[in-house]
Structure formats: structure tokens, C-alpha cells
């Protein structure tokens, strides 16, 4: 069992406050993703939970027990590092077995667990190799294997896929998803990748400058961002933000409309503009429009839209999909 609860957690490095009064709860078995811009404190937060950094104030509870002053090994968590952090001088088998050896488990139990983990992760043929003789994806699997055998209360992943190429990333993303479905263990996952966050998470924690901007399911964040920051951060391509008369007409300081939530026409509509570039992705077409009235807009059209640069087009936001923000950038009802 592994619920994780943070209560008013702060972390200062010298005079710099990196984590600022963060509170939230991860329920047992949940897949939680931390997202946020570079340097916002995602890794630091994960390392605080792991116990690799000491918190400056506040409390961290695992399964309801305060572990703020407990060492990393005793917290019963397993971490998968971005750099994999495999032991270079040990074989894959010994890498995976290391934690079990440290826990002084009997040899036959260790062998059994290692073999089982290797089978799950397709590593059986590589058990006698050393990390440097493996591909990036295989190294990543070893890192995960090392975490699995400990049967931790929760897994902590820090951008585990960021060193892999796009195709392998998709594959490993699915494998981690399967793993979560099979083990049903709490997983906490840091990523930069929109798609990873949206597809894997039960719950997303959006961080901004060391503070929680919003917590919710992927669709909650997509449909009901609580402010400009989350609205811009979640969703790809980014939401269009418009201020000025178009927003004033709707009683807001600014309004936001996602590229996929506009009506697009070559004859009539609310915001006229000229096509700057059209990106044809096959399944979708992204059209970048320069509008004199409201500035640059991004439009996402399904399929292969026959749009040419320089063409005059009209963009009309779908009223029921419109997001309204007040002067402070907060969402309005």
C-alpha cells in the first residue's frame, strides 16, 4: 500500500526557495504525473518524497506515517532516475538483485525475483551483460527492473524516457502503463512530455515556480484550467489567448480558445486573417493564422485541409468552448 501525502512542504537551497508550501495527496494505486516548466521544482519535489533531500519545513506522510525524518531506504519507495544510474561494474542480474542483497534475502528468493522481473521486462537474455553493453531502452528496463524487485510502496520516476528516441518512448510509455495496470502500485512520474502526462496520468499536478498551480485529472485540466498558466501549459498546440475588444465583448480581461475548438472558414467568420504556414501532419493540419484584429492564432483542422499560405481565412471561436480569464489571469465562471 502506498499513499503519499505532502503537507505544507517547503524546500530552500540557501536563500532560494525552490518548493513553496506544497500540499497534496496521492492515493494508493494512483498514477500521478508532475508537470511544469523547466526549473519549477519537479525533480526536487520527487527527491524530497524519496528522501534524497531533506525538507526545510512541512511533513511528508507515506501510508499516513510521517517519514519526514526517515532515510530514503526506510521509506519503501523505489526511484528510477533520468540517467538510469545503473551500477556500471555489475551485471544486469546484480544490478537488479542489489537491493535484495542489501536486504539480506535468501539466494533462492533473490534468483526467483530477479528472473521474474527479467521475464516481465524482456531482459532474460541480457542478465549477464553489463550496462554499457545495452541499448538505451534496455538500460531503462534494467532501471525499472531494479525498482520492481523491491516491491516498493510506490515508484518514483524522474523523466525516465527523456533519453530515448520517439518510437522507443511510445513503446516504453505503454510498457510502464501495462506495469501500472498489473502491479497496481502507486506511481509518481515527472515529465516534460504533454502526451506522456495526458495519457498516463490518473492525476496531474501542475507546478509553477515551486508551487502547485492546479491538480486534477487530465481532462479536468484540459477542460477547466483554473487560470492562464495551466490553460497555456496543458494541451498541444497551445491554447490561443486573446485580449482587447474580443475579450471585452465577452466581459473578460482575456479569453482562451483551443486550436481544435474554432470554426474555420474561407468565406466568413469573426476573426479574419491570412494564413502564415500550414503544417500537414496527415491526420491533422495545423494552420497558423495572422489576424489583424486579435494577433496570431493557431487552428487545428482534422484531415488534410487544402490551405495555402497567404490565403485569407476566417476563424470563429466556439462559444461553449471558450475560456474566460480575469485581470489576474484566473479563470472566470
Amino acid at each position, binding site marked *: 500500500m502506498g499513499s503519499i501525502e505532502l503537507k505544507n512542504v517547503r524546500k530552500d537551497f540557501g536563500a532560494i526557495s525552490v518548493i513553496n508550501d506544497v500540499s497534496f495527496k496521492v492515493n494508493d494505486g494512483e498514477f500521478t504525473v508532475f508537470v511544469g516548466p523547466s526549473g519549477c521544482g519537479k525533480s526536487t519535489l520527487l527527491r524530497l518524497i524519496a528522501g534524497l533531500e531533506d525538507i526545510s519545513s512541512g511533513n511528508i506522510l507515506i501510508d499516513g506515517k510521517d517519514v519526514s525524518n526517515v532515510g530514503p531506504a526506510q521509506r519503501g519507495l523505489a526511484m528510477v532516475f533520468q540517467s538510469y544510474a545503473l551500477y556500471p561494474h555489475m551485471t544486469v542480474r546484480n544490478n537488479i538483485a542489489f537491493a535484495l542483497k*542489501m536486504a539480506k534475502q535468501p539466494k533462492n528468493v533473490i534468483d526467483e525475483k530477479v528472473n521474474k522481473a527479467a521475464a516481465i521486462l524482456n531482459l532474460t537474455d541480457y542478465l549477464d551483460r553489463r550496462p554499457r553493453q545495452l541499448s538505451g531502452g534496455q538500460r531503462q528496463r534494467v532501471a525499472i527492473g531494479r525498482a520492481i524487485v523491491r516491491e516498493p510502496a510506490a515508484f518514483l520516476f524522474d523523466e525516465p524516457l527523456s533519453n530515448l528516441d520517439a518510437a522507443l518512448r511510445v513503446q516504453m510509455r505503454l510498457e510502464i502503463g501495462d506495469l501500472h495496470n498489473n502491479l497496481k502500485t502507486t506511481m509518481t512520474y515527472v515529465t516534460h512530455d504533454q502526451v506522456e502526462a495526458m495519457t498516463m496520468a490518473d492525476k496531474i499536478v501542475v507546478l509553477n515556480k515551486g508551487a502547485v498551480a492546479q491538480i486534477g485529472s487530465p481532462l479536468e485540466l484540459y477542460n477547466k484550467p483554473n487560470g492562464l498558466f495551466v490553460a497555456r501549459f496543458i494541451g498541444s498546440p497551445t491554447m490561443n489567448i486573446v485580449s482587447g475588444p474580443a475579450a471585452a465583448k465577452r466581459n473578460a480581461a482575456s479569453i482562451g480558445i483551443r486550436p481544435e475548438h474554432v470554426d474555420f472558414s474561407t468565406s466568413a467568420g469573426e476573426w479574419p486573417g491570412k494564413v502564415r504556414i500550414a503544417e500537414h501532419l496527415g491526420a491533422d493540419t495545423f494552420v497558423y493564422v495572422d489576424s489583424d484584429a486579435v494577433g496570431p492564432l493557431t487552428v487545428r483542422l482534422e484531415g488534410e485541409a487544402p490551405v495555402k499560405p497567404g490565403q485569407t481565412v476566417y476563424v470563429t471561436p466556439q462559444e461553449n468552448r471558450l475560456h474566460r480569464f480575469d485581470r489576474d489571469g484566473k479563470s472566470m465562471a
Partner: protein
Amino acid sequence: MARKVSTSRRVAMSAVAWLVALLIFFPILWMFLTSFKTEADAYAVPPKFLFFHWTTENYVEVQSRVDYVLHAINSIVLAVGANIFGLILAIPAAWSMAFSPTKRTKDLLMWMLSTKMMPGAGVFMAIYFIYLRAHLLDSRWGIGFLLMMVNLPIIVWMLYTYFKEIPVDILEAARMDGASLRNEIIYVLTPMAVPGIASTMLLSVILSWNEAFWTLNLANVNAAPLTNMIASFSSPEGDFWALLSAASVLAIAPILIIGWFSQKQLVRGLTFGAVK
């Protein structure tokens, strides 16, 4: 490094490499050849390369004049001893500077290196008189201690750069895996540090082996290493090239053999941990 290299280019590169290697090796080869010549052949103009009267009389002469075994043992004792005690001091020092640096760590390292910039002659008188009063002249302990101190800054620096290369992530992973500090050191840190320590050890042995300034000035007979022995053959009666060569060959033979068998470590050591 999977670059394609054309054959002609490879041949040219090999030729240059051989040339450079030969150039560097030539003095040693010449010394080796000279050590088997008679003094007359050694002075012959034009020089005789291979076709001379081979003789081992120089080696016999060296043996009769000096106690080669004593000097060789001294060299080994001094180099190895200075090395062992040096490592005992340097490993923890470099370790703590690499893994828990403070604000002053960089300054400290620079300061240690700066001591190498001072010529030994600058402190010679002070050390000579200290050694004289403390009855450490011509003692293995005294000379060994000095050699250790002379090399310590370099050893600490070298170990520091090696330890710095060990990724902190891996140590943290071990911590997460439940390794106690002791197990972390035994099973994770030490195995990763061993290549660096080995290279450092080698370089340190070679530096001590070749040290001449301090040993010539502070040691006479009992603690005199092979460098002193060579020096004793460049004698007041004039230079005997063949004899001197034989003494030199004997002096460098042990270190050449060690060097030959540990080339890989040595190259790593000399590049100061810069090449992985």
C-alpha cells in the same frame, strides 16, 4: 569513433606514429646498445650501431663498484612506501572534497597545486637542517616521507578528478536500494574508484622512482635509491659512457617492466582522467 578512414591515410598515420615512437624510444635504445660496448666503441665516430664487440664487462664493473641490490631495494621501498602512505592520506582527502565539497574546496585544491610551483631548492636549506637535527638524513623513513609529501598534491588532484567523475545519481540509487554507508562504499564506490586509484598509484610510483633532487641531497648510502647510483657514475675522473649506460639500464629496468605491463592504466593516469 566509427569514422571511415581511407587506407592511404591510415598508412600515413601509422608511419607518423612509428616515427614519433622511434624518436622517443631512440635514446633508450641507444643507451641499451651503448651499455654493451667497450668505452672505445662508445666514443667511436661515426657511431657504431649494431656491429661492435658486444661485452657485458660494464655490467660486471657496475656490480663491483656499487651495491645494485641495495639501491634497487631502496628505490622500491621508497616508491612503494611513499605511495602507500600517500594514498592513505590522499584517498579520504580527495573523497571528501569530491563528495561533500565546501566553499573552500576549490581554493584548497589550488593551494595544494601551488606548492608544486615552488622549486625544491627554495626550501632545501630549511628541510636539510630539519633533517639534520632530526637525524633523518640518509634514512628510508625520512626520504620516504619527503617523497610522499612532494607527490601528495598531485595524487590528491588526480584522485579528486577521478572521484568527481563518479555520478552522484549512482550513489543515490544505492542509497534508495537500502545500502548502508558501509555497503555503499564497499559495493558501489570502491569498485568504481579502483581504476582511478590504480592509475594514480602508478603515476605516483613513477614520480617517486625518478625523483633525484631530494634523494641526491638527503640520502647518501643507506637510503640512496637508483637515481643516486646513476649519479655516482657520472664521476670526477671523466665520463665513462658505456659504464654510465649500463648503470642507467639497470636503474630503469624495473620501472620499464612495470610500465610495459600497465600501459593502459598509465595512459589513463597521464591524461589525468580527462579521457574516458
